[in-house]
């Protein structure tokens, strides 16, 4: 067993875990963070995507021990404390970018990371950026539209913040 300390959605947890334990299993089974989902066993589907130190990773491809000393954000920690939805969450709702909702936690977390990497993506860049996340319901069109809308919202917010700080 290995001792780890991981901050997940703002709370720091210390646990003894088996070295083979996957991060996604740690999140779901040890911490009860069942908002993050498992859709495959070959790292193809991306349902388990979370942020590790702000960057999207597939939590089925990272061991819990590798997260020791790091910060994890899951879909459960994305909205503000007062329940204020993240612009990506809001856009997924408004653009009908989810149906069954199973790919959604991973798809949203990947989209958050994608927009950090590239705040003004083209449609092709969005499709390429979501290549590692599978959705069976939507045919992707509304997911692409949601990411485009979130990009605009985030750009507007950044512009407003920029104006504010300049003043």
């Amino acid at each position, binding site marked *: 067993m290995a001792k780890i300390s991981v901050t997940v959605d703002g709370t720091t947890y210390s646990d003894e875990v088996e070295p083979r334990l996957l991060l996604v299993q740690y999140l779901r089974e040890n911490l009860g963070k*069942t908002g993050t989902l498992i859709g495959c066993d*070959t790292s*193809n*589907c991306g349902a388990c995507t979370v942020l590790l130190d702000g960057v999207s990773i597939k939590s089925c491809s990272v061991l819990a021990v590798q997260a020791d000393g790091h910060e994890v954000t899951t879909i459960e920690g994305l909205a503000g404390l007062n329940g204020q939805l993240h612009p990506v969450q809001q856009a*997924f*709702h408004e653009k009908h970018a989810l*149906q069954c909702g199973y790919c959604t936690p991973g798809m949203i977390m990947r989209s958050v990371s994608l927009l950090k990497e590239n705040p003004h993506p083209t449609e092709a860049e969005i499709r390429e950026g979501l290549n590692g*996340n599978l959705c*069976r319901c939507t045919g*992707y069109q509304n997911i692409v539209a949601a990411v485009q809308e979130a990009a605009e919202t985030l750009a507007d917010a950044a512009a407003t913040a920029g104006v504010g700080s300049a003043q």
Partner: protein
Amino acid sequence: MTTTEATTAAAPEAEIGRSRTRKEDQHLITGHNTFTDGMTLPGMVHLAMVRSPHARATITSIDVEQARKAPGVIGVWTGKDFPEQGGLICVWPITPDMKSPVHLPVPTDTVNHVGEIVAVIAARSKTDAVDATELVTVDYSPLPAVTDLAAARDGSAPVIHEELGSNVNATWVYDSADAGTGGSAKDAIAAARNDPDQIVVERTLRQQRVIPAYMEPRSTVCDPNGANDQITVWSATQIPHVLRTVLTLSQGIPEHELHIIAPDVGGGFGGKLEVTPEEVVTIMVARQLGKPAKYTETRSECMVAAHHGRDQIQHFTMSARKDGTITGFDVDLTANMGAYLALIGPGIPILGAFMYNGIYKIPAYHFSCTNVFTNEVMTDAYRGAGRPEATFGVERMIDELATELGMDPIELRRKNWITHEEFPFTTVSGMTYDTGNYEAATAKALELFGYDELRAEQKKRRDEGATVQLGIGTSTFTEMCGLAPSRVLGSLSYAAGGWEAASIRMLPTGVVEVITGISPHGQGHVTGFSQIVADRLGVPFENVKILHGDTNVSAKGLDTYGSRSLVVGGIAVVKAADKVIAKAKIIAAHLLEASEDDIEVSHGTFTVRGTESSLTIADISFAVFSGHNLPDGCESTLDSEATYDPENFSFPHGTHLVAVDVDTETGKSVIRRYVAVDDIGTVINPLLVDGQVHGGIAQGIAQALYEEALYSEEGQLTSGSFVDYLVPSAVDLPHYTTDRTVTPATSNPLGVKGVGEAGTIASTPAVVNAVLDAVRQFGVTDVQMPMTPARVWQAIHDAKNGGNAGNNDDGHGNSDNSATGGAA
């Protein structure tokens, strides 16, 4: 009781037709989902399965002693340790002499496909359970596997289930001459062969096996000591009600002792329209231990053990006059059932029998389907279920005929389709189409697509001999939705009916609970049904709560599949709402001291005609709750129940057009433009409809270009993970241009037709026709689905070298594509 002043304000905006965002989303986008695998109950054990690595074998011994001693293990079972297990049942005996093998959840003596369960481990953690599976030793005596459909049909393969004496499950026939719905197709085709003014086109096509690949793997939790002394089962299922009844019929558990809950369910597409060995095993273990048990499959287990879809060899013969008028159509199918019969597996190809005539006036039709057993996993419903296979067949054959006649494929369709003045129209397969307007949908699609410009570009590229050739594909599809009129199902020997139930509870504070027997898993029914009820009862959208997916709450229902939820379930809701209004009207008249005949009802407000004296439905709800002043003998409730059994199917239709760039040097096809104009009747919520169409198109494209469940000759699934089975990602799929024409259905009060399967049914033949349109110029006559770059390249290469241009290359189907003119 006070009466409210009648307002002169404008009536509230109609909810039906509004693009409401979904009520369902909030918990799904914030991670507060309730998918089954997220559940944990006190003392719960975790299950893992030991599965057969052989496609066909005798089990000679199973040693579980080491596994029993493994850390955390609580119990180990083989088939013999479940004396209570009953065989899983098929509820659709398509013919009186249909052959049906015993299908035990955990077989005791033989296995018949890779992935069958042979032993079960229960442990304190999933990890412990999975670790212990490695310690179970099973000795098998392998037997030769059957994977060739033609050999299974013609008797040259070993018989899988010896007690049945044959690998043929059943043969089901429809002949329009016998049914009185048309002439004899056999005669028509025979006559055409000897008629210089006619042509006969004969093709053998392959509907490959595909995997539903819903994103949530199947999962079941059973608490044998549930509330109300019931056995509570949470399952990732489309069919909680059917599951309960079938568990009773197959396992002998009294129906009222079972409480089934379908919580959040992560997609289904027909793939969760099943009663599975895994569900039965989880319940049996939980009951034997007296403790809650959970089983969640891995994706690889899902690929190998959950049912697949499609998988037919299709032989078509179509005759036509040389002006393009179709004179006869003969369909002969060989359909792969897999090793056993799934819940409705044998009936799936039969659902297509009524759709091979499509939108066309075909005077003579013959359909025959022979179902066969193989050592592969079972087939059953997959989005469209029989109708995609049919639409693929007829839309492909129309293009083949157009090619042989040198006609434009749109023109040939026009020549044969039912015109809008001809509805209602009874087809050669006996269906009565209530409404439709194929001309309008096609005209709109052609305009959006830019058909003439693209044809001009295609010609230019052909003339230039460009490396990347343009192909244009058409699919003018229809489908039968709203499963189903119970009498029709009865005539097809289906065990159950096709009605749907709804009930409405009017709460004292004016809010409304609607209980539906359908079981949504992504479609957005909570939002759509709220809109319908808001309009019907005149209450705010926000004041409607839709309850579903729990047999203790929704006691009666037949669940979600076959594009039935709105067309049947939604109409049941309408009927229930109308009963509420009827009851409320009596009470309103009493409270307003008026005659019932003088009460006008509009948007939930009950007004005495010619006065400003009125009550809202909320006022009446509270009056009923208090019960202080009701008419003599009036029951103190507005609540209602309705069960709706449709009299006919509904028939959505549409025109899908696709432009595909085919790189002749690599064989790669890229969809450049996709236009879908669907006519699904009245639209409740355009946002939801577009979502259904997008996703449907994606799945149909996936069958055309990407997906195939491949078995080796030994019966190993060689596409058994998402590494090997290509579920398309965002980069593999195009932008879709969607639009609609609206020809309301006349068979139901909302005028709705259903939309869940339309995109999937339409898109596959459109895409295949487009790719072939690009490469026919080289002499290619067929490319088997999925039309991978390798297959397209090979077909071009073979054709240019004068080889077999129809590359049915998997040994399952023979290629005998031919067109013969009459005796010239």
